[in-house]
């Protein structure tokens, strides 16, 4: 347990970078917004 810093989310975004991603995720804008692109709020479907 750290004294000064608490990790809330332990991310690993770069892990898929070498493979280039599978592409199975939704189109970003199609699902609910249609105007304000927010790629990061989708889920990975794998």
């Amino acid at each position: 347990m750290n004294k000064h810093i608490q990790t809330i989310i332990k991310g690993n975004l770069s892990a898929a970078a070498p493979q280039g991603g599978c592409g199975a995720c939704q189109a970003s804008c199609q699902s609910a917004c249609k105007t304000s692109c927010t790629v990061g709020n989708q889920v990975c479907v794998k």
Partner: protein
Amino acid sequence: MIWETYAFAKNIHLYRHGGLNLVYDVNSGSLHLLDAKSYRWLEDMIKSGAENRAAAGGDLTAAERGEITREFDQLAREGTLFSPEAELPPPYPETETPLLKAVCLHLAHDCDLACRYCFAGTGAFGGERGLMPLATGKRALDFALARGGARATLEADFFGGEPLLNTAVMRALVAYGRDAAAALGKRINFTLTTNALRLDDDLLEWLDLEKIGLVLSIDGRPAVHDRMRPLRGGGGSYAAVLPAVLNVARRRAAASPYALGAYYYARGTYTRYNTDFDRDVLHLADLGVGRLSVEPVVGGGGLALREEDLPALYASYDRLGEAYLAYAADGRPFSFFHFNAGLDAGPCLPKRLKGCGAGLEYAAVAPNGDIYPCHQFVGRSEWRMGSVYDEPAPPPPEIARQFAGAHINAKKACQSCWCRFVCGGGCHAANVDMAGDLREVYDLGCRLQRKRFEVAAYIRAREALAGSAA
């Protein structure tokens, strides 16, 4: 120590919100909560500049510096703080034809509302009013399935104008699309974006049966909605659409907040006339509408958001974040699309680099079969990408290369922005309309995006703290 040379501004975001000290690590997607001393030291290092960093945190004791240094080092070794920038290849190599994953079918270039902020010119998209014939819809689905190559799933959205002016064609296309996809060993996930004016029980039964996702347009409080979304014949549409929205909310109360399966979202637009849009979100939440997405208008002439509106908009997001937590604590949770920050199970970095995929993985088809990069570009002849009636099927034209080159590594503003992997470079259409070029960004939209993410990450931190205290 890595921070002696680290590019802080583009790779971490340090901020205070709601009494918490937070740091977001851009390249790993990690989020940390800092105590006052570690926050102050990091803030001091960022402000100091590379040559003076060794002197940062001078008010800390030697023991404190040692403790914090060890914790920073540990997180750096784990790759969750001060993480390195990944080597990312171009998202769309020139040697590959991108596979289409989503198509937007403009079933109707007409509408029964006359919304004041409509980017489609109340449905006509700058052209003639008309409906998509069934034959054109079938060609569009065939085109999209073929261009999807080995991709197992196609997303197809029924859009307009108002697509329910063409309901018979929509029903027929779902049946056709299911068969056409199955023959190729694929499936289609259909969605419908509608103003809900014609969403009756019979249609809802069918939409549930077919597991069709729904995006329902409603802006919030009656006066706000009616001011912006009048009927074509005059008068507000709130009273006419609300029953259907509530009906869907009841039927789909357990729908995924991540727009998966037979989901729904009530989707509103805010303008400079309701910079207190948090009240619109909560109005709908209080009515039991649990999946909400209220978003900034893009363009909109006199309704357009301006620099001077930002403080009120920021305050609205701040209040909404606190209300989001309070409603959840009170057993009345709702989801707000832009607070779904995908922090735990979000998309991978290559997807974030690609952005929305318009013009490459996503296309829109007008009622006459013309193909465009996305629904926002429909009707603009300079962005036409061919037709579903072209024989043979058109390859991606030069326009597609323009979109392929408009990724965040190619946008100067994005290269130094800590929020680049959240928005993926923003909306191409907004960038073209408001900044004049695919490789420029709509700055006001960026600033709202950054604010939304700050609140979203704060909410995640508060949820984690509440969970650990329970």
